């Protein structure tokens, strides 16, 4: 029977992959997504031993700290890095794992937590702890990183000014994009890892190398946009490209691999798989694309049309702000 105790390092007996999973600044959806592989989780259990997964099993940080370097075969790390604890664990897991995988949009690009980068940290704290409409905090009590209790000093992690993708903090071996990655793609990636069938380090896995438009079921009629609609302002005409109908869709600037699941539910793509192969900045890419789809040769009309898009930065960088060229708004 295989020895599962961390730190014993009897590699020959224990032929199963030593797997770790961690959750930083994220919503927890990636943990659920892994469970979404359904009964394949039993197959996973045949091939891997879970050595660390705070969400699900009871190993502690000190168990990881006790492991020799490169002890874990694979770590799936989801969530962006936004505080000192997450930065510490990112470095710890990097040291203790052979293969570190940035799992999901937050680890890949900062994700939804990355939208905090539109504001200075202080503004966020003020809003949450004092300025919010339902907050009563007359004494201005804010969380502290240390506090003296009768029992001793207790600590909280320190918040960083900027939410960062995992790759801006440690070297990442592979990235599985998506918010969350689809169960299908997760399983394909796990198989690829188990079989050792991986591309060059630094690659994106569990995704395609075209844009979502390639997987989208709708017809492109090559019709220019006449006006823009927010998704709640229009019932889309079935079977026709949403962007051509004036509903902002990130499809042209988003990597394929999700099977256009949102489009198949009649909702525009929001860009969660990140920029297409070769593109760096998802927002710049969609601005270029939308700019070439307008029905006008008049600059005043172009200006009026473009002003119909509410919150372009939030819409175009919804998942990728942390990984965009600018990375954050000016403080």
């Amino acid at each position, binding site marked *: 029977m295989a020895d599962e105790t961390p730190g014993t390092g009897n590699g020959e007996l224990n032929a199963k992959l030593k797997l770790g999973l961690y959750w930083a600044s994220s919503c927890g959806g990636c943990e659920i997504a892994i469970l979404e592989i359904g009964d394949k989780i039993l197959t996973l259990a045949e091939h891997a031993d879970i050595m660390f997964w705070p969400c699900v099993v009871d190993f502690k940080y000190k168990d990881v700290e006790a492991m020799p370097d490169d002890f874990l075969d694979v770590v799936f790390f989801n969530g962006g890095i936004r505080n000192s604890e997450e930065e510490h664990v990112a470095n710890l897991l990097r040291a203790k794992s052979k293969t570190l995988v940035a799992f999901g949009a937050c680890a890949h690009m900062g994700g939804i937590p990355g939208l905090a980068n539109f504001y200075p940290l202080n503004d966020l704290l003020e809003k949450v702890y004092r300025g919010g409409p339902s907050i009563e905090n007359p004494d201005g009590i804010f969380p502290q990183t240390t506090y003296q209790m009768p029992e001793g000093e207790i600590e909280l992690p320190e918040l960083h000014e900027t939410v960062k993708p995992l790759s801006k903090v440690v070297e990442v071996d592979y990235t599985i994009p998506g918010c969350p990655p689809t169960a299908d793609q997760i399983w394909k990636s796990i198989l690829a890892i188990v079989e050792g069938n991986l591309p060059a380090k630094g690659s994106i896995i569990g995704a395609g190398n075209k844009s979502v438009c390639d997987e989208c079921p709708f017809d492109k009629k090559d019709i220019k946009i006449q006006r823009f609609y927010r998704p709640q302002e229009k019932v889309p005409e079935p079977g026709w490209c949403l962007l051509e109908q004036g509903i902002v869709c990130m499809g042209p600037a988003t990597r394929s691999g999700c099977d256009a699941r949102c489009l198949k539910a009649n909702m525009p793509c929001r860009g969660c798989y990140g920029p297409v192969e070769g593109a760096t900045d998802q927002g710049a890419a969609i601005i270029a694309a939308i*700019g070439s789809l307008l029905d006008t040769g008049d600059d005043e009309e172009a200006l009026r049309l473009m002003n119909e898009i509410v919150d372009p930065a939030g819409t175009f960088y919804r998942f990728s702000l942390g990984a965009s060229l600018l990375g954050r708004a000016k403080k």
Partner: protein
Amino acid sequence: MAMTATEKDQHNAEHGFQPRIVAFLCTWCSYAGADLAGTSRLQYPENMMPIRVMCSGRVDPEFIIRAFMEGADAVGVFGCHPGDCHYINGNHKTMARIPLLKKTLEQMGIEPERLQLHWVSASEGNKFAKVVAEMTDEIRKLGPLNWAGEE
């Protein structure tokens, strides 16, 4: 971090702030117009760094963002007047992309005055010199962007 108007004026007076302006000029109209300004010996500020492209429609928003990241205080995109684009509708794309990018960058803390779109034809040497002078003055008053200071 942000200076008041008075502090900015003081800063500029003390340090003699020279704005760095990157200008994308389309080959067929605006670059020729800039050239005409030169051959006509028109005087205009030296703060502009010209980059020739075939068409203003070639200017990817990413170029503009990179210019700001690498130290530009302002970016000008110059193209043919609507209807006159050498490639028929290249400038149609520009006229849509630049306003959208401006609005996006404004949300990122880059003032909309820092990205300007101007139509300059091959015969408009005077206009080119005037636009560059006005833009330089406007950005001088606005102050440096100093995006790299964010890191």
